[in-house]
C-alpha cells in the first residue's frame, strides 16, 4: 500500500515537473494503422504522384536533411522553383495545422496539397487516381485496405498521412532531460534558460517546440512583406496577418537548414540573429547565440530508422 502511494506521488510529482516546463517530450509511439502506413510509405517514395515522374514526397522531405529540403526553395515538376522553404515532415503529426500558413487542418488535408500544387507535383485529382489505379500492385494493396477495387484521392491522402504518423523522433537529449533520464551540460542548460528568459518560449513551446500558434515574423522590427509569400494574409486578407506564419517546429532544427519560410537564414546563427532582432528587438551576443545553439542541438531526436529506410 505504502509502496503504491509512493509510486503515485512520484508520478504526480513528475507530471508536475513536466507541467512547469513549456516543452513536453515526444511520445515513444503513437497509434497508427500498419497496413495503411506501409502503403503510404511506398507512395511517399514513389514519383508517380508527380506530373513528370521527377518528384516524390521524399524529394523535398529528405530524411537525410531532417525530413526537410536543404535547398532554399524546392524544385518541383518541370524544374520549377517553389516559393516556400519546405518544412520538415518529422513530427509534422504534432503540428496544430499544416503548411506555413496553416491552410491544412491536419496531415490528411495536407497530404494531397503538394500533389495538386502546379509548382510542386503538378497533378489533378483524376490524373493522380488514374496513375495509382493503373498500378496492379497498388490496386492489390489498396484492396486489402479498403476492400474496394478503385483507389480514390482520399485513400491516397489517408495512407500517406498514416505513414507520416510513423515519422516521429523521440528520445532526443532534451526529451530524456525532461523525463529525468539524463542531464544537460552547463551550456545547454544555460541556453534553455536563456531561451525561456528572452521570450522564445512564448511561441516555441509544446511537444514540437512551436507549431501550436500563428505568429508574426518581425513583431518589433518589421520585415519587408513579399506578396508572393503564402502567409496568413494569403488566406485571411487581414492587414495584421501579413508576415504571420505558423510557428515552425524547433525539433531537429540543427538538421533542417536553411531556415525561415523563405530559407533566408542558411545556418542557426543567422536564424537566431534575425529572429531575436526582428521579434525580440535585441541584438544577441555571440555567447548567447552559442548557448541557444547548444540548447537547440539537444532537440535533435532519434530518427525512425525502420520507417525512413526505403
Amino acid at each position: 500500500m505504502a509502496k503504491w502511494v509512493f509510486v503515485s506521488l512520484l508520478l504526480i510529482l513528475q507530471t508536475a515537473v513536466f507541467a512547469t516546463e513549456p516543452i513536453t517530450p515526444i511520445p515513444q509511439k503513437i497509434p497508427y494503422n500498419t497496413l495503411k502506413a506501409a502503403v503510404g510509405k511506398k507512395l511517399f517514395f514513389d514519383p508517380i504522384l508527380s506530373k513528370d515522374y521527377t518528384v516524390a514526397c521524399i524529394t523535398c522531405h529528405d530524411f537525410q536533411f531532417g525530413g526537410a529540403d536543404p535547398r532554399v526553395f524546392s524544385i518541383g515538376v518541370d524544374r520549377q522553383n517553389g516559393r516556400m522553404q519546405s518544412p520538415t515532415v518529422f513530427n509534422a503529426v504534432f503540428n496544430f495545422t499544416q503548411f506555413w500558413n496553416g491552410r491544412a487542418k491536419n496531415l490528411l488535408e495536407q497530404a494531397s496539397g503538394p500533389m495538386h500544387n502546379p509548382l510542386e507535383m503538378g497533378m489533378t485529382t483524376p490524373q493522380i487516381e488514374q496513375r495509382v489505379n493503373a498500378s496492379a500492385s497498388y490496386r492489390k494493396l489498396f484492396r486489402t485496405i479498403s476492400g474496394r477495387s478503385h483507389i480514390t484521392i482520399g485513400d491516397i491522402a489517408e495512407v500517406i498521412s498514416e505513414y507520416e504518423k510513423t515519422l516521429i523522433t523521440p528520445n532526443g537529449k532534451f526529451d530524456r532531460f525532461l523525463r529525468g533520464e539524463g542531464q544537460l551540460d552547463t551550456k545547454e542548460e544555460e541556453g534553455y534558460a536563456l531561451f525561456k528568459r528572452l521570450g522564445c518560449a512564448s511561441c516555441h513551446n509544446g511537444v514540437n517546440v512551436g507549431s501550436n500558434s500563428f505568429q508574426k515574423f518581425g513583431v518589433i522590427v518589421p520585415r519587408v512583406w513579399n506578396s508572393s509569400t503564402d502567409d496568413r494574409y494569403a488566406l485571411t486578407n487581414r492587414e495584421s496577418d501579413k508576415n504571420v506564419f505558423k510557428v515552425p517546429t524547433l525539433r531537429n532544427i540543427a538538421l533542417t537548414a536553411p531556415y525561415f519560410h523563405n530559407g533566408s537564414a542558411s545556418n542557426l546563427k543567422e536564424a537566431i540573429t534575425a529572429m531575436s532582432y526582428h521579434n525580440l528587438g535585441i541584438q544577441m551576443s555571440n555567447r548567447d547565440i552559442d548557448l541557444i545553439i547548444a540548447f537547440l542541438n539537444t532537440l535533435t531526436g532519434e530518427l525512425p530508422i525502420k520507417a525512413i529506410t526505403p
Partner: protein
Amino acid sequence: MKLPLKITFALIAGTIALLGLLYFQHFSENYFSKRQLISEQIDAIETAEKSLDYHVLRSGFFLYVNQDEIIAKINAVERIIDTLRKNPNFSNEHPRTLQTLEIYQKAFLHKTDIIYDFQTSNAAIKNATMAIPALKQEAVAVFNTTKPDELRFLKEFSKLSGSVLLTKNSLDAQLIGDLDQGIHAIESYDFKEAKKVQIASSLIGNLKVFRAFFPLYKEAIEHLEHSDTKESLELLRKQFMLEDQTEFYAVTYFSYILVFLYISSLGLIIYFLIQSEIDARTDRLTGLGNRKAYEYRLRRSISSVLFLVNIDKFKHYNDFYGIASGDQILIKTAKRLKLLSRSWHNSFLYRLGGDEFGIVIEYHDHIDLEKLGRSILKEFQGKPMLIEGIETTFSITLAISTHSPLLETADMALKSIKKDRIRDMILYHEGLNLMEVVRENITKTRELRHAVEHDRLIPYFQPIVSLHTGQIEKYEALARLITEEGEIKSIFGYLDVVKESKYYATLTRVMVKKSFQVMKDLPFEFSINLSIDDITDHETILMITQTLDHYPHMASRVVFEILESEAMDDYTQVIDFIRIAKGYGCKIAIDDFGSGYSNFDHLLNLDIDIIKLDGSLIRNLPTSPHAVMIVETIVGFARKAGIKTVAEFASDKETYEMIKTLGIDYAQGYYTGRAASL
C-alpha cells in the same frame, strides 16, 4: 364467428400486444440510451470548451505556457462535434438540433480564429512586458542619474514600465493615451552612446509592439469572454430538449397505443366470451333463448310462471313432410309466440325442446293464467300457417305451471293431457298428483326392462265363452309380466310405459311367439292384440308372417285384435295387413269398439270378422239405457254385416245375462273366467 377463428383472433391480438410491449421496451431503452449519449456529448462539448477557455486565459497569465493544451482542447471540441454529426440518431432524428449544432460549429470556428489571434497578440505583448523590466535593469546600470536628462529618461522609463503592466492587467484602452505620450517623450531623447541608443530603441520597439498589439489582445480577450459559442451551445441544448421532447411524446403516445391495444384485446376476449355465452344460450333455428338460457333466467327469478307450449303431432309432420318443413313450422310458431308474448309485461320466450316452447313471466296473484293461456291457444286455432306453400293448421297443447321445478311440473301436466287428448290446456296444481305418476312410471320402466331382458314376459289366456253353447270356444292372449320378486302382474298397468319405451315391438313379438307355442297343441281359437304401431312396423309384420308360415295349420285358429282406439290415420297399411292375415286364413277383430273413435264406415271398409265391444259400454249396461241402445245398434249392424260380436268385461252374472239377452255372440270377463296360464 367460429371458435377456432375467435381463438386465432384473440391470440393475434395478444401476440400483437406482446410484440408491442417488447418493441416498446426496446424502443424506450434505445431512446433513453441514445438520448443519454447525445446529452453526454453536448455536456462534453461544454466541458471541453470551458477547459479551452481556462487554458487560453492561463496562457495570458503565465510567461511560458505549453500552448499544445489549447490546441488539444480545440481539437477535442471539434472531435465531439464531428462525432455528434456522424451519429445517425442525432443527425436523422434531430434535424433542428443538427442545424443548431452547425450554428455552434460555425461560432466555434470563429472562436478558434480569435484564439489564434489571441495567441499571436499574447506572445507579442507577453514578450514586450517581459522585455521592458529587463531593459530597465540594463538602463539603470548604463544611464547616469547625475545627468538631468538621463535621470528624466529613467523616470519616464519607470513610469512607462508601470503603465504597460497596468494597461495589460486592466485591459483599459484609456491608458493607451498615457502610453502614447510616454513613447512620444522617449523618442525625443537623443543619446550618443551606442549602448544607450540601443536600450532606448529597444524600449521604443517593445512599447510600440505593446501599443500595436494591445487593441488586438484586448479585442480577443473580450471576444472570448462574450463568445457566441456559449449562447449557441445553450441554444443547442434547448433545441435538443425541445426536439427530444417530441420524441419523448412519441414514446408516451406509443405507450398509450400499447395500453389501448392491451385493453382492446382484453375487450375482444371479453366480447368473445359474452358472445360464446350468448351463442350457447341461443337456439340456432328460432333465435330464441334455449333451455340453458331458460335455466339461467329462472335462477335469477323468485316466482315465475311457465307457459309450456307443445305443437301437436309435430313428430308426425316432421316425419311426413321432412325436416325442412318441420323447421319452418318451428320458426313460424316461434314468430307467433314472440309477437304474442311481446304484449305481455316482462315476458321471456324460450325454445325448450324439439317441439316445445316456453313463455316465462313474473307471477302475481292478480294474473289470470287461464286467460293468458287461452290467448295463446287462440293464436293457433283456425289460423293456418303456410308451410311449403300449403296452408296447414296446427293445434297446440298448453301446460301452465307456477310450481317449481316449473319445466318438470308443466311437462308432466302437458303429458297427462296429451295422452288422452281431451283438453288442450292444463294448469298444474299439486292435486294432479303427477309427481307420483312419474315416480311410478320410473319404477315400471325399470320392471319392464328387467322383464324384457330376463325373458319374463308371458302370455296368459282369458277364456271367451260362446253365449250360444255356454262353452269356452276361444282365448285371448294377454301379456303378463313377472317381477323380480316373482309376482305376476298384468301388462295393463305398464302399457303407458311400454308405449313410451323401445320395448313395444318386443312385447308384441314375444306375445305372438309364445302364444303360438302354447296354442299349437290345443284345439282353441286364440286372439292376439295388435296396435296400429305394430301393423305399421315392418319387422313385426314380417315376424308374424314368418310365424304363420311356420305353423300353417294354426292360421285358421288365429284372431288378430286391432285396437280401435288408436288413431287410424293411415288406413292403407291396416287394409294391407288385414289382406295378408286373411290370406293365411286368420280372422280380424276390432278391439274396444264403441270407445269413442268407432266408425261404422271403417268397419265396412275393413274386412272385419269380429267386433269386440268396449268394456265401458258393457260395464254400463245394467245402469245405462243409453249404453243398451248403443250396444243394440252395434249388434244389429254386426249381425247384418255378418260380423260376430264379443262382449268384454262380463264381470258378473247380471251383466252376463244382459249380454246374452242383447244377442251378443261371445262374452269374456271375470264371470266367465279369468286369464290364466295354459
